[in-house]
């Protein structure tokens, strides 16, 4: 089969599976949680895989947006879609601020600045009364989408989630394959050259950062809807670490990679929770180590490479 066809078939198969999953016994809330994190990982990957910027503070966008959405629905009684939109806008704004401060630096300095800024967001969330501190923002109702689609039922929420996720996923692929995306790729591979060609590199990077932040924010808002609460672990730096793991595991710079990576990590945390609770961190640590040593391209990346080798041999 042609590579494009293989890819298309894979996507369709996955979509089909996701659509029928609740009817074949897969627990819908778990899949929804997975989709939220998959979206988060895809948003992160937009920045790392396609722009080459490692952010260590993405939890700030994810978590703060989760709080914002929860707050507007629960305490202000806003309609669901407006609350989600508010979360996304706030996340994008925070992304703008972070980006303006961090963009000029490279590599590890960039990562450290994003970490420092995210810690400040964490501190704000810890102190601000509306977040509920350690107890978190609890009991957020799902409300009605667009005023008439009741989201309380898990099944309805599920299909809405799938629709949103597919939409965003396609959106990301569009962005990456567009001319703008090509410039990002060039910046990632050879920044000095991009500058010499006259591109305003910082503008491109900033836009990528804001987009990534906005999508991460959307993931956070949706997570609040699905789970009904937002807590401090959403803005903690270990959440930033988790999303890096998901992208690395799945394959940085691929489309499906972060989705697979998110799937593996969420599934691991969930299934391991009741079996080997004490060992979850050790296992995650071991996965990090193994991935970095042997599996650097991640699941999807290695799969691509393997398929390339097969085609080359044929």
């Amino acid at each position, binding site marked *: 089969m042609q590579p494009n066809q293989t890819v298309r078939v894979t996507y369709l198969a996955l979509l089909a599976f996701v659509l029928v999953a*609740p009817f074949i016994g897969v*627990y*819908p*809330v*778990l899949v929804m*949680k997975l989709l939220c994190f998959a979206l988060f990982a895809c948003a992160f990957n937009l920045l790392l895989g396609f722009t080459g910027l490692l952010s260590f503070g993405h939890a700030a966008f994810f978590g703060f947006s989760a709080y914002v959405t929860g707050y507007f629905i629960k305490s202000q009684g806003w309609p669901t879609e407006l609350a989600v939109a508010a979360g996304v806008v706030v996340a994008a704004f925070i992304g703008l601020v972070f980006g303006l401060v961090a963009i000029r630096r490279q590599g590890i300095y960039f990562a450290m600045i994003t970490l420092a800024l995210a810690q400040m967001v964490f501190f704000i969330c*810890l*102190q601000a009364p509306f977040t*509920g*501190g*350690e*107890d*978190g923002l*609890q*009991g957020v109702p799902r409300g009605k989408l667009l005023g*008439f*689609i*009741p989201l*309380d*039922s*898990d*099944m*309805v929420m599920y*299909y809405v989630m799938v629709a949103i996720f597919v939409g965003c996923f396609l959106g990301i692929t569009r962005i990456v394959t567009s001319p703008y995306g090509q410039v990002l790729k060039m910046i990632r591979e050879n920044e000095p050259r991009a500058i010499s060609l006259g591109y305003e590199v910082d503008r491109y990077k900033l836009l990528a950062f804001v987009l990534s932040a906005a999508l991460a924010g959307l993931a956070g808002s949706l*997570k609040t809807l699905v*789970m*009904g*609460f937002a*807590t*401090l*672990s959403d803005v903690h730096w270990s959440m930033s670490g988790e999303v890096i793991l998901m992208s690395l595991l799945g394959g940085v710079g691929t489309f499906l990679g972060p989705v697979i990576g998110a799937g593996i990590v969420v599934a691991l*945390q*969930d299934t391991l*929770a*009741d079996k080997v*609770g*004490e*060992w*979850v*961190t050790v296992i995650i640590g071991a996965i990090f180590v193994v991935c970095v040593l042997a599996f650097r391209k991640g699941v999807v990346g290695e799969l691509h490479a393997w398929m390339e080798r097969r085609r080359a041999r044929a």
Partner: protein
Amino acid sequence: MKLKTLVAAMAIGLGTVSAFAQSNSGPVRIGFITDMSSVYADIDGPAGGEMVKWAVQDFGGKVLGRPVEVLTADHQNKADVASSKAREWMDKDNLAMLVGGTNSGTALAMSKVASEKKRAFLVIGAGSARLTNEDCSPYTVHYAYDTVSLAKVAGKALIQAGNKTWYFLTADYAFGASLEGDATNVVKANGGTVVGSVKHPLNASDFSSFLLQAQGSKAQILAMANAGGDFTNAMKAAKEFGVTKTMKVAGLLVFINDVHSLGLSNTEGLQLADSWYWNQDDASRKFAKRFFEKYKRMPSSLQAADYSVTMNYLKAVQAAGTTESDRVLTALKGMKIDDFYNKGQIRADGRMIHDMYLFQVKGQKESTTPWDYYKMVTKVPGEQAFTTPAESKCAAAKK
């Protein structure tokens, strides 16, 4: 209009597909979700889960002719893991009852799930009094301790003993703040004064600076409104800087594992409130001995409470003749509970009313056997220790 109706109809249709009713056959499943691997793993953790299993075994392993199964999970101090596990068990495994472990944030999340799915949720490890106040629910029972009782017991007893001036060292998070808040109310209501307070960030690496400020206040009591690692590090530093020589230290949330890890030399004279101590009577010692044989350490009050609540739940199921939560909870709240852990009754708002104690840590010379750490200073009857119906923010308490 037509589109809206269509969508609404689809929604209802899909909604009914997912309606999972409680079933009255098959095994009776009890779930236990707590922190198994992080800061609270010693005071509750996997040993707590084992206590739930022991209660089931001692009850006979079956109730109403159905076998009883215990499921356990580690929420890793994440509310979303706790809540999704609870939800999953209730949806897929027909969970009859959930025992809640440490960490108030997770307990609040699980409480919402339990009331949505109409299953009994019996909270042991978490301390937030919100569970029986602002966030009360007919399905949530708060069994062991809460921040109000800790504050009232420590506060009142210490003030009545003449310690009128207080200084708070508080962990800067919701739990610490509510501990400090509840204790301040008690202090003031009993004629004491709060001379000052300082908030330290969670997991602070060094307490010397805060303790210096506390020392400068010259208050009689240094109240530690923090827990776990923060408490143990602060206590150690308090000894190091000689604060314990000039002020009496009251720990507002201290478990026997904390005292053990600090050692008596660091904790001698510490005042703390708790619901149970392994060495308080013969029945407790018997339970503790069994625990010690397996774990080589003494049980905390939470682990004892895990056993007690499970045993009493099974008795309530037997009495009600069904596992349906509404009827079981009515039976449970109607029972006069009397076991080695506690004696008392569960109130309509879900709060278990039992006696609480103020303990003092013994000195090294007074302690005769391993883990012989506490002596009882006073016993506070349940009605005085917990939120009174008048003070309660839960409608059910007022009935």
